[in-house]
């Protein structure tokens, strides 16, 4: 075998090597491969196909990614055939790579991943979205760290109409943001490390983020969910924008745009105007109150018993705002859902109701009138039962009397003790599962200057209070509600340690 090929296959080492040695060896291997690439660039570029046949991307991921990097830097990959070949190498790698090896040399992986979605056009957008999503989840199956790659790929997928491909990515809850100085003393090859310990600016698995990138990610995620009619997830994503941390009276344009959409999505989701969470900054609240007023009025009119108010507000908002803010379709959907929510809310009043009475008691916000026929009501109710928004069934008596809607009632009795205890256990496990997340955050914050100042201040205050004979104020997550002030206290609610 060609010694150069053997060198490419020299890493990873056999099983049994500890994390420290694994990391050291990986760095030495990178050096060796760099030398080969430097010396035999021509050989690599000309015989890439033969070389990569011997370098399995799932096994020799580090070597493979370095070869790919070399190929990407080579001129002459512009021909159609060469282009397709390189794309197939990259796809093969991104779908199979060994995440442990990649952690040891993040910068190269980041460059290669970036090539999959940047304007070089190696992949069509649909493939790029799928491959990059798979690669990101391969690196961090929990998907809890936001990277620059997330932001770019989600934007690309939304702009090119490939939302489906990125859904597995945007469904994951983002908890951590990459920052400098996040690495721990443990080597990144340690597979027990929490994601933020190996995906950060030091390991270069992500480029630096800005607040607008984070906001844009949540905002576009919201738009993706809106496109898929997944209202709860859309609402949550937009709410993350609306409540985004701000200081010194800051509020961004994305936040106000998100607020407007958040109101519309809230109406579609619950049939009621949503309430701003406590965590919304005071400055944002003031700005939303002014800039989002037309949407708020529309939401209030949605609760009115007649469609006329809603139509009037829609006309006002349509002429001034909807077009500019790209909310026309969403607002029209709100109008279309007005009558549906009226019917759903009938479950709080009726156990059975004739379709004729539904026709009389509800109005379409598209026409401002009740539906013209009972058949149209029948069709609407049927569609609501089918899509699961209405728990009921249409009964058609055989004696010729008119059809009616019977709402399915909730169980009359509460849960048994056993059922309740099982559900509580499940919820408790969910809360206990937060422990690693809290630990990871604590570790991360331990090196944060502000946090240390805060902790010292807290300890000092506690000592002073004790001295004065006052009872120390309790803190921690046991507090049921959180209140964010204008200048958000970074560490409020964290247990002192």
């Amino acid at each position: 075998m060609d010694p150069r090929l053997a060198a490419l296959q020299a890493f990873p080492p056999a099983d049994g090597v500890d994390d420290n040695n694994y990391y050291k060896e990986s760095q030495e291997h990178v050096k060796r491969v760099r030398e080969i690439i430097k010396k035999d660039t021509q050989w690599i570029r000309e015989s890439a196909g033969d070389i990569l046949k011997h370098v399995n991307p799932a096994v020799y991921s580090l070597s493979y990614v370095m070869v790919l990097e070399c190929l990407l830097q080579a001129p002459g990959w512009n021909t159609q055939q060469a282009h397709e070949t390189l794309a197939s190498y990259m796809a093969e790698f991104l779908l199979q790579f060994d995440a442990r090896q990649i952690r040891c040399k993040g910068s190269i992986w980041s460059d290669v991943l970036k090539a999959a979605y940047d304007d070089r056009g190696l992949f069509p957008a649909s493939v790029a979205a799928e491959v990059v999503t798979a690669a990101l989840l391969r690196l961090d199956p929990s998907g809890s760290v936001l990277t620059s790659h997330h932001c770019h790929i989600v934007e690309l997928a939304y702009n090119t109409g490939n939302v489906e491909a990125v859904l597995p990515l945007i469904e994951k809850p983002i908890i951590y943001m990459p920052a400098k100085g996040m690495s721990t003393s443990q080597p990144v090859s340690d597979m027990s490390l929490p994601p933020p310990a190996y995906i950060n600016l030091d390991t270069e698995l992500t480029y630096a983020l800005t607040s607008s990138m984070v906001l844009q990610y949540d905002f576009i995620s919201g738009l993706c969910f809106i496109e898929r009619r997944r209202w709860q997830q859309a609402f949550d994503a937009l709410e993350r924008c609306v409540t985004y941390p701000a200081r010194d009276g800051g509020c961004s344009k994305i936040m106000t745009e998100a607020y407007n959409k958040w109101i519309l999505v809230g109406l579609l989701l619950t049939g009621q105007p949503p309430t701003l969470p406590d965590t919304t900054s005071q400055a944002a609240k003031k700005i939303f109150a002014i800039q989002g007023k037309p949407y708020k009025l529309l939401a209030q009119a949605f609760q009115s018993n007649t469609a006329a108010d809603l139509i009037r507000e829609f006309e006002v908002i349509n002429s001034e705002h909807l077009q500019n803010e790209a909310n026309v379709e969403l607002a029209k959907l709100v109008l279309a859902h007005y009558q549906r929510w009226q019917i759903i809310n009938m479950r709080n009043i009726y156990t059975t109701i004739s379709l004729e009475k539904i026709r009389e008691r509800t109005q379409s916000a598209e026409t401002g009138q009740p539906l013209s026929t009972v058949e149209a009501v029948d069709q609407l109710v049927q569609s609501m039962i089918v899509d699961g928004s209405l728990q009921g069934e249409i009964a058609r008596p055989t004696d010729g009397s008119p059809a009616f809607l019977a709402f399915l009632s909730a169980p009359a009795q509460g849960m048994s003790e056993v059922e309740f205890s099982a559900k509580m256990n499940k919820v408790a496990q969910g809360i206990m599962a937060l422990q690693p997340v809290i630990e990871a955050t604590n570790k991360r914050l331990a090196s944060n200057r502000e946090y240390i100042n805060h902790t010292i201040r807290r300890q000092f205050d506690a000592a002073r209070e004790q001295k004065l004979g006052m009872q120390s104020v309790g803190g921690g997550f046991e507090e049921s509600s959180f209140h964010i002030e204008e200048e958000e206290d970074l560490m409020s609610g964290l247990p002192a340690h």
Partner: protein
Amino acid sequence: MERNKLAYFTAIENQGGVVVRETPKFDLDLYIQNYKGRTRWERLYHIGRTSVPLCVDALKAAVQEAKSGSDVMRYKYAVDSLRQVAPDEPEALLDQDWIDTKNKEIRNTTEHLQAELQGYKNNLIKESIRMGHEDLGKHYEAIGDLETAMDSYWKMRPDVSSADQLADIGKLLIRIAIERHDWKTVSNHLSKHVNAANDSDPKAKALRTYSKIANGIASLGQERYREAAFSFVWASADVPPSVYDKIASPNDVAIYGGLLALATMDRNELQTNLLDNDSFREFLQREPHIRRAITQFVNGRYAACIEILESYRPDYLLDIYLQKHVHKLYADIRTKSIVQYLKPFSCVRLETMQKAFNGPGPSIEDELFMMIREGKLNARIDSINKSILPISVDSRQKMQSATLERFGNYEKQALDRIRRMNIIAADLEVKGTGKTAAMNPIQGGMAVDDSAAVA
């Protein structure tokens, strides 16, 4: 209806006024005998502008009442209204001589009282100064200059020498505030000037009852119905009506207290605070139908209660303080009756309910629909089988769902908080420009690094 009356009441209706066409059950002369002072004219004039059958009699009485006093404007108003309704009545002609004489008399009295007061002030006799202000205040009140009257009464305060005198000033101020329907001022003066702690002293007891009635009227005006109900209910029947007859009569106490209690108290409270309350029972003796209505309600015969009240609706619409609230109070009593009626049943046929509560409003199903939608009744209508099914609150189930929801939110909140901390720790918050944000939230507060809009 006669042509003049028709035109008169059409105009009132067009202005949003209430017009009562039914003949009330009370006798106007007996009714007005219960009152003293300026409230007599006010009540007569109100009835004259509201009741079609009593309009002429009431306005004629109002003209006479005004002429027996010193308020020229009131006289003119009453004559003007009577002229529109019954131009042929002798009282409908404006007595210009009386007006001229009265105006001259008023001028002289004002000058005389002002000079007298000035004299007291020059002599620095506190008691005389206080009385001078009081005389002047009463004079202004009598001629209808309430603003100046209030000023004069207010000026009595620095010269008071006893708690009784302070309470008297309070009563004068309260009387004027009630006439002006300035309910907040009534409450203010009650708390500032009228405090009677000692019930054994007849004077204090009288003051306490006056205070309760005034507070009841003010609370009613501010739609604080429950507070108003308790105020009336705890007025003492031992206190002679002359103590409070310039603002209300004992019959009013029974009616206001009874209606407000029916609208705001449950059956046990009605029993304890009204039927078992010796003092209030005495008031109720003057209005036996209110006592009957309360008894029927307490005994669970809601339809009978509503029927009694409905028959007295025209009477209550003629009351100066009650008129505005009759519709709401009746609706509340009806709602409460329906809710109480349904309590013991798991299912009631709509037909039965229609019979029991056949009111002037919409059909019972529509009424129940509105009540459930507004959250006043926890029940479901079975529109096909024409029945209503009350829903009893299962505390255990409520607790279970509340607990599960709370824990679910806890997890969500905790994750959100951690995410926010990580954003802040990574220095990724949106930063504003500081103080300017508070002054100009739109421009000053907007961050500059993310102007990109996503469509």
